[in-house]
């Protein structure tokens, strides 16, 4: 039974978000939002100062 429970662990349906006809799984939605946030931050945040050449 223990093994079956482990095998079934990957078959949970998950949480889905929907706006009209558009439906997306929560995990996929989070990944897309994270990528967009990283992209914007990469453009606006100042870069760390590197080593100065001797």
């Amino acid at each position, binding site marked *: 039974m223990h*093994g079956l429970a*482990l*095998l*079934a*662990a*990957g*078959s949970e349906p998950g949480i889905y978000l929907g706006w009209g006809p558009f439906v997306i799984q929560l995990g996929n939605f989070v*990944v897309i939002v*994270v*990528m967009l946030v*990283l*992209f914007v*931050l*990469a*453009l606006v*945040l100042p*870069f760390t100062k*590197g080593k100065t*050449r001797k």
Partner: protein
Amino acid sequence: MTTTTTTTTSTPPVTPPVVPPVNKADEEEFYTWTGKARGWLLKKLPPEKLLPQDQPSYVASWIYVFGMGAIAALVVIIVSGIVLSFNGPLWWHQSSLGHFVNSTHLWSVELFFVFMVVHLWGKYWMTAWRGGRILTWITGVVAFAVSIVAGFTGYLLQTNFASQWIAFEGKDALNAAGIGAWFNVANLGQIFMWHIVLLPLAVGVVVALHVVLVRMHGVVSPADATMTDSQLRDAPALDAAAGKGN
């Protein structure tokens, strides 16, 4: 009695001519195919380009970090994948260390794709295929495509109900495309081989080629940088030709 006098004339100090660094591949004669191959490689990818010490100042931006981030994630994927393949499905399902390594493998894949997509967005918006870099762009696209197939086979190897469902949803499409015999998603052993041999090899080779091409052509500049920008490659020669000095 005669005397001789010597006159000295003041001459301006002679400045030595500026000699551009000579590429070793240009002065050596190659007459065998191995020698010619070496000459071609030295010309296309001299050591100072393969392993540069400095980068232009525009590279000091977070948007230039994500390519290397993806490669770092790929290294973790490969190392954790080797550990998983040595131990097998029972280990990663039933032991706590197996769970941990399995999760490390999954999350490094998540990071790999996140970094790769942000890298793709950054390069798309700076039109990174400029300046003869089209093959660099194409190898990036191929790396992305092959990685998706590798990720798909990884989901099939979860050996749980989800992987069974994914396999039986996908098999009809693959059979209809005529590749079901060589890429049979219901055949765990075959998919295991694809996932741990051919696909990682393909991803590794394409990514390596991608990096070598970046080294050959140099890191692409931001789209608004002009060719007379002193940070750009060959800029001194261009500035001199334009009479701007340096």
